[in-house]
């Protein structure tokens, strides 16, 4: 059996990649995708923990399912907002969306 650490390392890498994406990307859509990456890392974590540490309970698995669901809703919601921005401003670059500051 693969040790749990492998899953955790994988999820950590994914999570970090997600963070990197959020910080480095300028397109709202890419940022959103990076966030999704982070959420997937969370799901992996939950599933790994659930399977390895508490196999008799489903909490972790259910958690993962909910995370996926929420993530899906999040994408829908976020894209709608990005769309509005794009409609009004013809850009999805977050650096250009800075009317409000200071």
């Amino acid at each position, binding site marked *: 059996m693969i040790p749990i650490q492998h899953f*955790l390392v994988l*999820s950590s890498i994914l*999570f970090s990649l*997600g963070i990197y994406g*959020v910080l480095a990307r300028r397109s*709202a859509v890419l*940022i*959103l995708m990076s*966030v999704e990456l*982070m*959420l997937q*890392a*969370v799901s992996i*974590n*939950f599933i*790994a*923990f659930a399977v390895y*540490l*508490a196999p008799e*309970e489903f*909490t*972790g698995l*259910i*958690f993962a399912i*909910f*995370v996926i669901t*929420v993530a899906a*809703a*999040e994408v829908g*919601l*976020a894209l709608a*907002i*990005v769309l*509005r*921005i794009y409609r*009004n*401003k013809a850009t999805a670059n*977050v650096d250009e*969306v*800075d*009317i*409000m*500051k*200071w």
Partner: protein
Amino acid sequence: MNLDWSLLAPEYVLAGWAAMLVSVDLFWGRLRKDWLGYLAAAGALASTLTSLIWLNDDTNFANLIEVNNYTTFFRVFFGLIGVFACVASARFVKDRLLHPGEYYALILLTVIGGSYMAAARELLTAYISLELLSFSLYVLTSYAKFDLRSNEGGLKYMLLGAFSSAIFLFGMSLIYGVTRTTQFEGIHEVLTGDTSGFELTLFLGLVLIIAGLGFKVAAVPFHMWTPDAYEGAPLPVTALISAISKAGGFALFLKLFAMAFLPLVDDWRLFLAGLSAATMLLGNLVAIQQHNIKRLLAYSSIGQVGYLLMGIAALSADNADAASALVLHLAGYVISNLAAFVCAIIYFNWTEKDEIADYDGLAERAPFLALALSISLFSLAGMPLFAGFVTKFILFQAAVEEDLLWLASIAVFTSFVSLYYYLVVVKHMYLGEPEEPTRFPTPWVEYAALAVLLIGVFLVGLGPQPLFNAVQDSTAFIFTGAEAAATVGAGP
């Protein structure tokens, strides 16, 4: 496992009402124009009243959702916030926004989210409620869809919210990995034992959770979204965010840390204290520089978060004092802040302006409004007669009880700083020259709502005993096991 679905009745009312509002909006055009807001308010009120059925009860639904005084308190609290948000929105929405049905439905959904954040007794429920609250707010923030500011605020709020909830979730997953449970009480039990083997994971998880919740309540440095979202959002939504998002965040924050993480209190106390100090300093100092009333209130609310965080930093295993003080101040703050926002909304309805300089001469044109805004701002600043004085006093004292005198000192200092920028607003209202000398028409309903809030401000300010008793009754429930027993009837 208790599967008594009736325990969720207030939320059923809300959800049902939300659905009804959407349909009414679709099918009954005439009503939607003028009365929809008040109808929504009635729904929130109905749910509030319903929730009183479980007053002094102590039960739970499927080990997921607790129904006890803590829940009831926040159900009532959020329900009332919903009522005021709806009433305050009525005119604004009618004049400026499309799709009022969905708007009010979303408000009611935030109430559900908030209530369950307080009611949750395990991580998943908490997370889902938090997202319910957040999602509704994301939508509401960008509700003025042709307004760039609204779009921008929504985008920032949404993306950062998603980002931070990912962080929050990752933290939860680590905690779950360490404790193998998502139940708060279970976590508490595990943490009470020996944790030496997995400290790294545990604390990393804790840090991530603090970050996630910190984002929700807008603690420095996770606060960045606040000013922009506040400024961008339609005014009533700003009011709603400032009230319910913060209160919900703290309801969960408090419950999580009191119920689950209390055994580690010595480890996280100083970190929260540090966050608290940074938050109140930054919030209050930057607020001095603001020219927009919404941004001003945003920063001032960041400052208030600093004070509230003191309450968590001062949590102790011996008694519920700090928790009670936190909730008390939360109530005082929300009432005052709502009153301030209602004033801003009324003014915006008249003039479509929200720069502080636009408030010049308001005392001439609308004396009551100027008075009401002054009172709410002074209450926020913690001046006597008004709610803020008592609640801050109790909160700070609670922090000092836990040897956080230095933190309380910073808090007192920053709340002194805050008086300055509130006074600037007052100065504009009372000393500025109005553009034109005419009086504004009197908006009776809004004024009535404002009057109720002001009465609340005075009630808390002059006779806090009932509220404090209620708060104390509710916070007694968030301490598990041995501590819970110790807290009942606490006091020296």
